């Protein structure tokens, strides 16, 4: 068979299947400026919508006078809650089981809240009209601190007054939303009370924002003649939007078509349903014309989809030797004025209960209290699976704090507590069943590559030099080891508004042997058109170059739950493989018929079926495809199509080991990233080039969050970081080159063993950057300081430790 080898290799290479760094098919359009994003959509007679927004964080809306605005030439309509009320659209349900005002109904709860929607002939006229709408407000006491909210007599959500039961159980106070408890409280307390060593820390994971380069927007077009509504928009989950739009508007679902065109980055920002979408639909219904709404950057940062804002208190116990015995975590979660967190229904704090991390912790307890404040709603998963960044940051800081308490090396402390390879599948104290992992191998590889011991020696020398007055720069070695939980998720416990979180793929093989596959997901830069074709190429033996991938149009794509939480590869990727296998099964029968042998006597070989033991007798997939359409094969239907809806049996658990080496100038507070090493294990690797790109991007967003990016409010509830002047987005100048590496531990339950990667670097990166900053000051007594570590805060830390004396 040796003479067959080169041929097989070549055939395999031609497929451009799994493991190939295939160049992206999307790029030809994008590099030539031919992307088609929402704001590029232009329809005849299209109108533009713009919002009147509240300048106050908490106020009663006394009156809205539209007269002057309506008198402006070009203004078609001004909608307020009063106009939406008859349609029952002045409020809308949130993904978290709460409800949210579409337009201010009597009061406003955060600065930037939507008060009225102006519809006009172009965006300039609409903006002029916004200025002409006169709104009279009566200011109310503002609460921006969740701890204060829980003590205050001020009722933020008057609509819920007297309701002691919320969507997730009892409410303890009028500004309280839910308490979510996981694990064994009594058992954990007992272990903590009797532990040899306990480390405690309080940390605040600040509010930030995904801030994709493209803001959110939609174009709604109600065709009154045929009763059909078409809605284009920045939707990470177009099918869910269709269902919600139908439930809200009463338009039957088959009469609604939702299209996600190209999306300019999502990172969680485009999962939610926003008032702008609803208003563009209503405005189109009212005016009978297409209506476009696109938020500007300030509106984006102020009103759609914040992330994080978790106040976390932890206690971790261990033996004197450093073996962890228990973990206790309490979170006060600031959800803003409405609970609009985008989590699976049964998880009001997402998967925060992954906070035992990569460690074998026998007992743990987690409680999360959700609280209303006068801040914007949101609570999305910014480049992470649901609340996993918070969880990983928490445990990776607790490990560092415990290392300080034990006076132990933090890398060693991790090593002795990792879940061991032979323990998988491993059931964690807070309930998750980790599917697979090999943490020790990854950790050792990482530490060896960066010469960890050498770094520590250099750091010790640096501290000594600093103390001798020979340098003003300290050195930090940031470590993090993370376990993600992605691929939501099994329908038995994961749903969004009642829709199970399966995903889907539908394949049609054309007679000439090329194919189209449609999925329920939607790419926002991840390159689905490239990678899903690769998965399929390996499954069905047709070159990826001959496979079109289509997503985002609910009229053609099968129902799916969309793209976020790194779920596309684990769920839709699995559906793709499974649908591919159905194609292959039918192709096998066709091949056997054509070769005049029994079905079991042929086997799949890269791009063909061959007769077992006689590889010179074969039918290529191309030949089989043709036969499927032009031959009457007894007992087999014509055509070659398949559809698969995949309900994952479990989540997938990617992991990784990161090391960051940083120099910090104690006099300016400027950190300089000298080296960043990222080892990721995302199971089977579909396209190494794209994986690497995802890692670079996720790390850069991690750098941003750790070192400066935040949505900050003053006491009056004013957003202090509403433009890109104040909201930190790193440029090429601030970002280092990253070293990427990998190990491969395939997921045992995923058809191709893939786990998802888009968000791992963010999840692991934030604690790594933060730990690097904090590690630099460990020798001077720092235990913990909150992010973001911007220059000013780092300077303050140095100052507080007396390093400027």
């Amino acid at each position, binding site marked *: 068979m040796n003479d067959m080898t080169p041929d097989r290799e070549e055939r395999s290479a031609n497929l451009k299947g799994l493991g190939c760094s295939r160049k992206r098919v999307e790029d030809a359009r994008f590099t*030539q400026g031919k992307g088609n994003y929402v704001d590029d959509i232009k329809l005849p007679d299209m109108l533009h919508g713009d919002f009147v927004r509240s300048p106050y964080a908490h106020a009663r809306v006394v009156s809205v006078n539209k007269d002057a605005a309506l008198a402006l030439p070009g203004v078609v309509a001004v909608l307020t809650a009063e106009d939406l009320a008859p349609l029952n659209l002045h409020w809308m349900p949130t993904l978290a089981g709460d409800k949210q005002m579409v337009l201010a109904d009597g009061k406003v709860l955060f600065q930037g809240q939507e008060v009225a929607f102006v519809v006009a002939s172009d965006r300039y006229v609409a903006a002029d009209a916004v200025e002409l709408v006169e709104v009279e407000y009566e200011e109310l006491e503002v609460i921006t601190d969740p701890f204060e909210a829980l003590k205050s007599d001020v009722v933020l959500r008057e609509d819920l007054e007297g309701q002691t039961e919320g969507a997730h159980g009892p409410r303890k106070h009028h500004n309280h939303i839910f308490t979510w408890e996981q694990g064994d409280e009594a058992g954990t307390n007992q272990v903590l009370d009797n532990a040899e060593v306990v480390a405690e820390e309080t940390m605040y994971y600040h509010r930030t924002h995904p801030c994709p*380069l*493209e803001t959110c927007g939609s174009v709604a077009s109600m065709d009154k003649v045929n009763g059909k509504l078409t809605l284009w928009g920045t939707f990470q989950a177009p099918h869910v939007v269709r269902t919600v739009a139908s439930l809200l508007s009463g338009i039957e679902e088959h009469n609604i078509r939702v299209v996600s065109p190209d999306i300019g980055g999502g990172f969680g920002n485009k999962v939610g349903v926003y008032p702008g979408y609803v208003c563009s639909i209503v405005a189109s219904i009212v005016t009978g014309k297409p209506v476009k709404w696109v938020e500007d950057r300030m509106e984006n940062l102020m009103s759609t989809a914040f992330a994080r804002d978790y106040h976390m208190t932890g206690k971790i116990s261990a033996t004197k030797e450093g073996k962890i015995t228990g973990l206790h975590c309490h979170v006060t979660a600031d959800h803003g004025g409405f609970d609009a967190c985008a989590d699976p229904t049964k998880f009001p704090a997402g998967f925060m209960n992954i906070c035992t991390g990569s460690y074998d912790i026998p007992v743990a307890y987690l409680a999360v209290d959700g609280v209303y404040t006068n801040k914007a709603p949101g609570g999305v998963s910014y480049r992470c699976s649901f609340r996993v960044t918070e969880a990983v940051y928490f445990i990776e800081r607790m490990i560092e704090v415990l290392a300080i308490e034990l006076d132990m090396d933090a890398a060693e402390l991790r090593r002795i507590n990792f879940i061991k390879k032979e323990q998988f599948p491993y059931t964690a104290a807070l309930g998750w069943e980790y599917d697979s992992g090999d943490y020790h191998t990854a950790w050792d590889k990482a530490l060896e590559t960066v010469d960890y011991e050498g770094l520590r020696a250099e750091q010790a020398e640096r501290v000594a030099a600093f103390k001798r007055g020979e340098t003003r720069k300290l050195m930090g070695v940031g470590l993090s080891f993370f376990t993600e939980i992605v691929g939501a998720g099994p329908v038995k416990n994961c749903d969004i508004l009642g829709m199970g979180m399966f995903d889907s793929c539908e394949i049609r093989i054309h007679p000439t042997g090329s194919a189209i596959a449609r999925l329920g997901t939607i790419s926002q830069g991840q390159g689905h058109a490239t990678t899903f074709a690769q998965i399929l190429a390996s499954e069905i033996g047709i070159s990826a170059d001959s496979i079109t991938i289509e997503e985002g149009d609910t009229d053609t794509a099968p129902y799916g739950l969309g793209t976020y939480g790194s779920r596309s590869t684990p769920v839709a990727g699995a559906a793709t493989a499974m649908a591919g296998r159905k194609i292959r099964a039918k192709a096998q029968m066709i091949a056997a018929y054509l070769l005049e042998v029994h079905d079991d006597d042929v086997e799949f070989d890269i791009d063909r079926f061959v007769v077992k033991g006689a590889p010179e007798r074969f039918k290529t997939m191309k030949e089989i495809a043709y036969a499927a359409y032009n031959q009457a094969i007894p007992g087999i239907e014509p055509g070659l199509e398949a559809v698969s809806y995949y309900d994952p049996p479990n989540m997938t658990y990617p992991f990784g080991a990161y090391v960051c080496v940083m120099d910090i100038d104690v006099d300016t507070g400027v950190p300089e990233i000298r080296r960043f090493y990222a080892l990721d294990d995302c199971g089977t690797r579909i396209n190494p080039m794209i994986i690497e790109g995802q890692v670079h991007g996720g790390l850069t967003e991690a750098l941003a969050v750790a070192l400066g990016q935040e949505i900050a409010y003053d006491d009056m509830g004013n957003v202090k970081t509403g433009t890109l002047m104040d909201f930190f987005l790193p440029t*090429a*100048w601030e970002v280092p080159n990253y070293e990427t590496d990998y190990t491969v531990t395939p997921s045992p339950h995923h058809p191709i063993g893939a786990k998802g990667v888009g968000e791992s670097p963010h999840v692991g990166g934030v604690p790594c950057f933060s730990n690097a900053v904090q590690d630099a000051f460990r020798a001077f007594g720092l235990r913990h300081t909150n992010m973001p570590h911007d220059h000013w805060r780092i300077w303050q830390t140095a100052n507080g430790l007396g390093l400027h004396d």
Partner: protein
Amino acid sequence: MSDKMHIKLKVNGEDKEFLAEPRELLIYALREKLNITGPHVGCETSHCGACTVTIDGKSVKSCTMFVAQANGAEITTIEGIGTPDALHVLQENFREHHGLQCGFCTPGMITRATKLLEENPNPTEEEVRFGMAGNICRCTGYQNIVKSILSAASEINAAKEAAQ
């Protein structure tokens, strides 16, 4: 509404004439009046560079400028760089080195990079990073953008050498 002005521009080699309010930003005139949708809007405050075009030989963020200020100017946008059959070296290299993900920043990035390489045909990595610092990308972390530009520079230089 204020009176409209008569605007003349040469965009990607074509003469364009239209009426616009003096306060209209150049980016909107391009996108909405001329249907040139390659340049994007990421901020409208001159921070992100998604709207970058070349005006009379200079890189300009087209949200920074009123269309009236550009009256009479010669403008190149991404649509004027390369053709489907003959992509610009930068376009080739962005694809080759995975210098883009969602593609939203890409038109501005490539447009800016064409000027950067004219200003400095042989840049160091540091010079590329500095020269591109006005263009934000949320997806790529820049590493592959820098790689794409450096690779394009050496290809352009090699071609020049070969021609001599």
